């Protein structure tokens, strides 16, 4: 049973983690990306359509990431160049993305809610089926897909990217003090746009993983608030890569375990609220600490 929870927990963690990676870089540059949900949905939709059309999971995944990236970039322009509010614009983009996809589905495919296409190529498993026999992690390894590996690699590389490259330094400086960036001759808006495009790219990957990991069917409710769970994760992890990843894993495992907890009498709906409650509690605790420190 633990094997199964671990295996499905990791599968459920991946999309949250991918989205959170983008979101945390975005927030380090000073933009709270509330539109991850919408961009994940777009990514999932594009992944299904392209996968069915080309039969290639790789092409589908790249297409999903690129489309979301372009959307993310366009979205950032409304904030940086037109002065839109990042919160309401983000919520608006979620509504717009859902509306546009619904519109396309019913217009182009004549379906509402669910899109089934033939010949959708799913994500391959990285290891041969025989690894199932490995104790404890066998199940997990057998179901491991390339995007999960990418997510783990990205998390491993991220501290280095943020700490040792110019891009990372500029991102952090932008979120911390944009006027300083201007004073030293750099362009903070450009960095915010780039980081939002980056977040879009990873949200697209997250959507592709969600769509192509197991079922290969698109559904309007496919993301089911995971973009917001990702938001919760990087808030919980205070924008630090490893802490954020740990929060994602926790939320993923919770998700996997909730079906089982039902059998011991815990209602799954309430368990679904735990990530949000945890963020709330974490925020309260950290504020209490920082207030006490200043007093």
């Amino acid at each position, binding site marked *: 049973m633990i094997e199964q929870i671990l295996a499905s927990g990791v599968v459920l963690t991946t999309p949250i983690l991918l989205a959170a990676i983008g979101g945390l870089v975005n927030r380090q540059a000073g933009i709270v990306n509330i539109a991850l949900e919408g961009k994940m949905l777009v990514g999932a939709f594009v992944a299904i359509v392209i996968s069915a059309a080309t039969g290639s999971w790789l092409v589908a995944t790249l297409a999903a990431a690129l489309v979301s990236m372009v959307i993310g970039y366009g979205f950032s322009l409304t904030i940086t160049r037109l002065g839109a509010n990042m919160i309401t614009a983000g919520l608006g983009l979620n509504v717009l993305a859902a509306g546009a996809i619904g519109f396309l589905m019913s217009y182009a495919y004549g379906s509402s809610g669910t899109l089934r296409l033939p010949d959708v190529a799913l994500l391959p498993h990285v290891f041969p089926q025989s690894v199932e026999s490995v104790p404890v992690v066998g199940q997990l390894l057998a179901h491991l897909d390339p995007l999960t590996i990418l997510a783990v690699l990205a998390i491993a590389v991220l501290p280095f*990217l943020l700490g*040792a*490259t*110019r*891009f990372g*330094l*500029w991102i*952090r*400086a932008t979120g*911390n*003090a944009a*006027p*300083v*960036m*201007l*004073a*030293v*001759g*750099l362009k903070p808006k450009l960095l915010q746009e*780039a980081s939002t495009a980056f977040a879009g790219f990873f949200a697209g990957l997250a959507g592709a993983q969600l769509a192509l990991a197991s079922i290969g069917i698109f559904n309007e409710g496919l993301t089911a608030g995971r973009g917001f769970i990702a938001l919760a994760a990087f808030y919980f992890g205070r924008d630090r890569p490893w802490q954020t990843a740990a929060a994602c894993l926790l939320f993923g495992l919770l998700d996997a375990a909730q079906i089982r907890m039902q059998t011991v009498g815990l209602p799954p709906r309430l368990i679904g609220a735990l990530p949000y409650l945890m963020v709330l509690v974490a925020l309260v605790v950290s504020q209490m600490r920082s207030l006490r420190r200043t007093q």
Partner: protein
Amino acid sequence: MTRIALGATEIRKSYGSVLANQGISLSVGPGEIHAVVGENGAGKSTLMRVLQGIERPDSGHVTVMDRDVSFAGPADALAEGIGMVHQEFMLAPDLSLLENLVLGDEPLRWGRGAFALIDWQSAEAQGRGLAERIGIEVDWHRRAGAAPVHIQQFVEIIRLLRRGSRILILDEPTAVLAPQQVNELFDLVRRIREDGTAILFISHKIGEVMALADRVTVIRQGKIAFSAAVAETSGEEIASHIVDGSNPVGGEIRRGTPGPVVLDVAGLSAEAVEKSHPLHDISFAVHSGEIVGLAGVAGNGQVELMEALSGLRQAKGRVELAGIDLGGLDAERRRAAGMGYISPDRRHEGLAIDASIEENAIAGSHRASPISNGLWVDRGAMKRVALERLNRLSVKYGALRDPVASLSGGNQQRVVFARETAGSPQLLLVSQPTRGVDLNGIAAIHSILRDFRDADGAVLLVSEELDELQMLSDRIMVMAQGRIVGALDADADRREIGRLMVMEGVGA
């Protein structure tokens, strides 16, 4: 050989009807420190904005290294080697000092473009080298926001030097420094001068000019009022040119006739705002019918004291208003007890700048009769009260509903006074009342303060303009490092006041 490192020729710049710069020319050569002094609003900052490429002059031109240049923006000025050290430090507080040092011009270990790897070792070596050259020590791995203020300032200077700035503009660099830190800064600036760097030093503190600069230029009302080699002039002469004619109403000095104690403060202490001094065991009294001036270098606890008295800041100690203990009362109750507060920051605290003139004039009285019965607001009464208050102080405005931002600085300040003196408070706490106010406005505000005093009001007045303090006050207290270090007559010798203002190591 370069003669002019940075020069301005016949710079004119106006904002609407305000002629901020009316043909200013000055220059600084390599290895020279040129001080530019003048009161707030004299036109110093406009000139600096032109020299930095932030503003384009209406006419006139800028010279860099003996060449005429034209700046499209601040980046051009930076590229010409002009570096500005701001009053608000330009460091990202959550990054380390080292990261701040190299930001925008990182030494690279590998690759190019945005994803190139930064060579932190050589960055640190460069930082060490520069710090050593100008004789300071820096813990480069410290978070910038956690470093002492003068270190933050030094790092900003080092950053400019590292990026090849041959001309430094220091904008009131000592405003937030403690005296010993000021000395360190001056040593550093002198060493930079020896390297051939040209330095433009903006200040309104004469003592610092005399101590540091080679040359001094006084700007008054958008024009050059005086320029000389420091060795050939005196502090008194500079001072006379700064204030000359700027106080046309200053002729008449009337003192008040103090009555009973209104404000009684004993053992007051409070935490500091960032970069300032905490209050330490402050005791004094203000009587009715007198203006008590509080002199001091900015950031020595004046803001904290005024906020602690008005209830905006938590404080320990005893504060009594006409015999009533104000301990534990918040700002709302202290107002009700008879206290008015003129904020030093009119745009961000004294007024809600985007709200209507009407609301700004009545705010604070909106819960009481006749405007409100506690539940509803009588808009008619509100309008009448606002009109009455504005007329009493002759505020000039278009319509009551216009945002208060549409008024001139002087009229904005009159709105603040109209509101804060309306309930005939016993005590008025006044900070920087004439900052950013034109000459007529200054005269009007001075007479408002005198009238208030003459009607048996008590006033505690904080001002950075010593002239203003000496002209208005009945007596003067001097604040340094969060303490009251002396009390003098209003016509005391300026040098004595100045000596107290820079008193060091009082207790601490």
